[in-house]
């Protein structure tokens, strides 16, 4: 029985003394081979929880374990070797080329002088290919469009070669084809024993991509389980505060969610 890639136990977090708790006692886990989706309305605490999962924010209470080890006791580079993070707002004005940014993903594996070996460069190239960003390799990131940039940052996360991927709204800027590509890449990695925690707004995509969904609202866990169990009109209506319809996809049977808007 291998240790879970991520085990979060009853964490609580508030941004500062005056604000309400952003995360109020949430537990969640990601096992090897799993793709877990984190869904919920704005300010539900999804991004905060994602950062806690990566060891970037320290919870006031509860524990975070990566492969059985306390995430905050691990040396920083070891932690970065176990979990790769893609934020919602990566910087747009980088002077580096796409290839150089992808190579940055190898940083946790490099020595004192931070010099990459041929193996690192090969991994970065492969990561660019996986994210369909190979043709962007020589271009400065600052000159790319939002979607192209997103693929480069994805390549960086892939190049990090961590068992756990934590991606915060990775599909926001991507077009349909690349959304599918991303989901396929993540699922493929899951097949080889890795895992992912995806923060998603797009509920249909969440339903199609994830093995399990975690529904948050105002920092608390509302529901957790396979998509069919979580993506139900009553639960979603309560969480999002608006009426939704859920219908099965005619081809795959996966739940498709649509907000009910009467004209």
């Amino acid at each position, binding site marked *: 029985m291998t240790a879970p890639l991520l085990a979060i136990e009853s964490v609580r977090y508030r941004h500062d003394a005056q604000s309400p708790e952003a995360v109020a006692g949430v537990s969640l886990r990601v096992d090897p081979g799993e793709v877990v989706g984190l869904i919920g309305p704005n300010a539900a605490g999804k991004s905060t929880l994602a*950062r806690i999962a*990566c060891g*970037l924010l320290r919870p006031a209470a509860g524990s975070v374990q990566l492969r059985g080890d306390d995430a905050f006791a691990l040396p*920083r*580079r*070891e*932690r*970065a*070797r176990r979990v*790769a*993070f893609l*934020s919602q707002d*990566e*910087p747009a004005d*980088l*002077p*580096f*080329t796409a*290839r*150089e940014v992808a190579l*940055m*993903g190898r*940083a*946790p594996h*490099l020595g*004192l*002088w*931070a*010099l*990459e070996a*041929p193996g690192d*460069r090969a991994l970065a190239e492969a990561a660019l290919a996986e994210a369909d960003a190979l043709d962007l390799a*020589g271009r400065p990131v600052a000159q790319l469009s939002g979607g192209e940039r997103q693929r480069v940052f994805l390549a960086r996360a892939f190049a*990090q070669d961590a068992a756990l991927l934590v991606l915060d709204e990775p599909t926001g800027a991507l077009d349909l084809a690349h959304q599918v590509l991303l989901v396929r890449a993540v699922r493929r990695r899951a097949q080889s024993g890795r895992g992912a925690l995806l923060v998603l707004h797009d509920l249909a995509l969440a339903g199609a991509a994830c093995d399990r969904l975690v529904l948050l609202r105002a920092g608390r866990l509302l529901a957790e389980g396979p998509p069919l169990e979580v993506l139900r009109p009553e639960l979603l209506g309560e969480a999002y505060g608006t009426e939704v319809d859920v219908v099965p996809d005619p081809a795959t049977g996966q739940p498709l969610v649509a907000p009910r808007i009467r004209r």
Partner: protein
Amino acid sequence: MKRSAAVRAAIALLALAPLVAIAVGVGLSLGAGTLPWTAALHGIEPDATVLFRLRVPRVVLAAIVGAGLSVAGVALQALLRNPLADPFIFGLSGGAAIGAALSVAVTGTALGVAGASAAGWIGLLPTQLAAILGSLAAAVLVFTLGRARGRLHPERALLVGVVFNSFASAVVIALESVLAPEKTQAVLLWLAGTLGYEPEGVLVAAGAVVLVAAAILTALAGRLNLLALGDEGAAALGVDVEATRLLAFFAASAAVGAAVALTGLVGFVGLVVPHAVRLVAGPDHRVVLPASALGGAAFLVLADAIARALFRGLGTEPPVGAVTALLGAPLFVLLLRRRT
């Protein structure tokens, strides 16, 4: 760019080495008078003294200061994520200026005599010791005030530094209005940046400081690259952002402190050499840092040689800081136009 960073750094260094050699050659040839090389190399006085005890130490000093200011400029631009940062921006120039101005003001008084003895004992001039102490005090002040909630905030430290520099300017101007004209001139000249003739011990010490600082910063170069991703992005890739910042800040401050103590405020080098290097070599700090060290050394050696040679025509030496600006600005514009 499919070549590794190590290869690109090596290429940059190989390309710059001849530039440094040429600059050194020019630096040794130009001076307030002509130098018959053969006579000098055969030990004939006074040519031998002029070459070995005057020009060689002067060129070495220019190289050390040029390299130190340039790597400090690179580091501070990375720390602040701001291409307009120069090595003096954190208040170091203000602290050194106050130190130097005060030391000139108290010459002849009991305090001045005591200070002169202390400095002489270490092997420095009183102005130099005062400048080092001044910039040290400024660095500590900026570092302390720039902290919030236990972490160093670069933007906050920058604000403190800029305000402190203004304050220091005012103090120096006030001092100047009280001092005798000769002393005022001494302060003004120091502020404009001049390269003098330093004894060997001082050169070795300064060279060691700059070398160690440059080595530390080059080792941090990979992490400095990652800082471009933001504090969070860098931390997610395993960088200890706070420690990297502190180490880079102090290494850069040490290099600037050594430079300022010896030569006053030589402007322009630390701001422009990093940019010029980046225009040619790209943004990777693992290449930019060593390349800036060599580029800065060559640039200042050349500027100083020109400043000294102008003595023949003008009867006086313009401060090297004026020459770096006069020389560097058009050069930079040229580079900029080539690239865009």
